[in-house]
C-alpha cells in the first residue's frame, strides 16, 4: 500500500510538472504572440497618427503659405516650409509602415501624387510671391478656390484612416484573443494543477487514514493477544499446579503401592507352605522361598515352567484329567487335594494341595496354589 501510494504521488507530481511545463511553453508562446499582436496594434496606431500628422502638417503648411502669400513675411514662408517638411517626413514614415499592405500602398502612391501636386502649387505660389508677381499669385489662388486637390487629399487620408481603424479593430481583437488564450491557458493549467494537487492530498490523506486504521487494528490485535497470553499463562499456571498436585498424589500413591507390594511380598515370603502363582495356562509365574527350599530349585528355574514339572497331582476319583488345570479352567477351588511334590534331587514329598482361582472381573486369569508337605519322605 505504501509503495503504491508513493508511486502514485510521484506520478501525480510528474503530471503536475508536465502540466506546468506545458503551461509555461504555451504561455511564453502566447505572450510572444500577444507581443506581436500588440506590435501590430501599435503599428496601426502609428499609421493613423502619421496620417493625422500628414493632414495637420498639410493644413499648417497651407495656412502658413496663404499667410505668406498675403503678407510676404519670411517667417510665414519658413513656417510653411517646415510644416510641409514635417508633412513630407510623416508621409515617408506612413508609406514605410504600409509598404507591405498592397491596398494602402496604392492609396499612398495616389496620395504622393496629390501631395506633390500640392507642393507644385506651393512652389509656384512662393516663387510668384518672392517675385512680387501678385497677379500670378491671385490667379493661382483663384484657381485653387474650392481646394479640389486638398479635398481629395483629405478624403484619401480619411479613407486610409478608416481602413486602418478597421485593421486596428481586427488587430486589437486578435490581441485581446491572445490575451484571453493566455488567461485561459494559465487558468486551465492552474485548475488542472489544483485538481492534481487535491488528488495528491487525497492520496496522502487516504494513505494516512489507512495507516491509522492499520495501527488501530494492530493495537487491538496486540491487546487481544496480550489478553490471550495472560489467559493462557494463567491456564498453564493452573495446569502446572494441578499436575504438580497430581504428581505428588501419584508419587504418594506409588509409594503406598510399593509399600503394599513390599508388605504383600513379606507376607508371601513368610509363609512356610509352598505357595505358587499360576497362569491360566498352568505355568508358574511366582513362587515363595519355601518352594525353592522344598524343591531345591531356584525361583528362576521354576518361573514360566509348567506346574506339572514340580508337582504331580493325583486325578480326582481315578480320572485322567489334571485336577489343577481342570480347576483353573472351571474356576473352582481345590482343598487339601493329595499331590506329590518332586524335588530337584529326585526325591518326592507327599503333600496336600489347595488351589484358589484368581479372578479379574469374573474372569479366571490364573490361580494361587498352596502346598503343604505332609511328611518328609527323605
Amino acid at each position, binding site marked *: 500500500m505504501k509503495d503504491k501510494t508513493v508511486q502514485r504521488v510521484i506520478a501525480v507530481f510528474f503530471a503536475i510538472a508536465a502540466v506546468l511545463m506545458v503551461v509555461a511553453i504555451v504561455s511564453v508562446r502566447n505572450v510572444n504572440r500577444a507581443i506581436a499582436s500588440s506590435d501590430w496594434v501599435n*503599428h496601426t496606431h502609428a499609421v493613423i497618427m502619421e496620417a493625422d500628422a500628414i493632414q495637420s502638417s498639410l493644413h499648417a503648411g497651407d495656412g502658413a503659405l496663404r499667410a505668406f502669400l498675403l503678407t510676404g513675411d519670411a517667417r510665414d514662408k519658413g513656417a510653411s516650409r517646415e510644416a510641409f*517638411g*514635417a508633412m513630407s517626413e510623416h508621409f515617408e514614415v506612413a508609406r514605410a509602415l504600409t509598404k507591405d499592405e498592397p491596398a494602402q500602398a496604392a492609396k499612398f502612391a495616389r496620395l504622393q501624387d496629390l501631395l506633390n501636386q500640392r*507642393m507644385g502649387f506651393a512652389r509656384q505660389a512662393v516663387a510668384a510671391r518672392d517675385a512680387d508677381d501678385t497677379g500670378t499669385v491671385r490667379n493661382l489662388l483663384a484657381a485653387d478656390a474650392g481646394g479640389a486637390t486638398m479635398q481629395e487629399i483629405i478624403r484619401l487620408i480619411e479613407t486610409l484612416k478608416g481602413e486602418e481603424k478597421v485593421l486596428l479593430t481586427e488587430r486589437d481583437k486578435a490581441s485581446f484573443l491572445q490575451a484571453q488564450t493566455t488567461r485561459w491557458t494559465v487558468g486551465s493549467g492552474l485548475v488542472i494543477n489544483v485538481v492534481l494537487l487535491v488528488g495528491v492530498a487525497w492520496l496522502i490523506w487516504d494513505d494516512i487514514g489507512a495507516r491509522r486504521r492499520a495501527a488501530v487494528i494492530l493495537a487491538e490485535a496486540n491487546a487481544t493477544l496480550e489478553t490471550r497470553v495472560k489467559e493462557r499463562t494463567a491456564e498453564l499456571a493452573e495446569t502446572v499446579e494441578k499436575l504438580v498436585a497430581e504428581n505428588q498424589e501419584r508419587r504418594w500413591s506409588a509409594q503406598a503401592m510399593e509399600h503394599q507390594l513390599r508388605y504383600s511380598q513379606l507376607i508371601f515370603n513368610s509363609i512356610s507352605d509352598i505357595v505358587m502363582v499360576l497362569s491360566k495356562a498352568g505355568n508358574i509365574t511366582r513362587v515363595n522361598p519355601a518352594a525353592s527350599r522344598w524343591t531345591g530349585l531356584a525361583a528362576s528355574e521354576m518361573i514360566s515352567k509348567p506346574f506339572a514339572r514340580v508337582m504331580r497331582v493325583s486325578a480326582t476319583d481315578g480320572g485322567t484329567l489334571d485336577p489343577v488345570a481342570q480347576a483353573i479352567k472351571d474356576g473352582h477351588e481345590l482343598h487339601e487335594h493329595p499331590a506329590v511334590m518332586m524335588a530337584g534331587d529326585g526325591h518326592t514329598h507327599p503333600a496336600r494341595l489347595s488351589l484358589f482361582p484368581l479372578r479379574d472381573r469374573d474372569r479366571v486369569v490364573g490361580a494361587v496354589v498352596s502346598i503343604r508337605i505332609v511328611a518328609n519322605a527323605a
Partner: protein
Amino acid sequence: MFTGPVEWGPRMFGRSTHFPGLWRGLFLMLALFGFLLPAWLPAQTLVELLNDPKMTPKRFANYFEYFEYEFSAEVQPPDVFLARKRGDCDDYACLADLVLTKKGFETRLIQVQLAGMVDHAVCYVTESKAYLDYNNRKVFFTLSHCRPQLREIAQDVADSLDSNWTSAFEFTFSDDTKQIAATVVKTAPPKDDPVPGKKAGPSAQPTGNSVKVGF
C-alpha cells in the same frame, strides 16, 4: 576632475530598467577613477566645437552635461541650441552629426518612432559602435553601445525609454529638413531591413523624400 552631479540609480547607465550587482561593482570602481576624468566642458559656439582638436564622441557629450531639455517641433540651429543651452534630442543628434562628421567620424542620424511617445533621435557613431543620446548626457556612460543595424538601434533606444517602437528611419538633415534615407518597420521581417551605414550599400543610400517641398 569629474565634478558634475551624478544621477544615482539605473539611469546612471543610460538604462531605466536594471542595475545588476556586477554593474554596481563596476560603477564603484569607475566612480573612484571619476576623480581623474576631465572636467565638464562648457560649449559656447559651433566654431569652438569644430575647432576642438581632441573632439571625440565622448568629449562631445561632455559639453552638454548641464544642458536642459526643451521640446521643439523643429530642429534648432546649432548656435541657438548652444547659446540657449536647452533643446531636445534632434538638436543634439543633428549637432553631433555635424561636428563629428567634420572631425572625420562616420555618423548616422536615427529617428525612432515610439508607441504613444514623441519620436526620439540619436546619432550613431560607427567608429565607437555606439550612439549619442541626449537623454544620456548627464549619466556616466554618455555613449550607448549598440550594434549598427537600424532595428537593433531602434530596439535599444525603445528599451532605454521602457517603450515600444513602431518604425525607425535613418535621415540626413540639411536646409532645415530631414531627408529619409532608410526605414525599418518593427512588424516587417528583419530580412527586409536595409544594410546599416551610409556606405554599406545602395539600399542604405539617402534617396530623399518622395514628396519634395523645394522652396
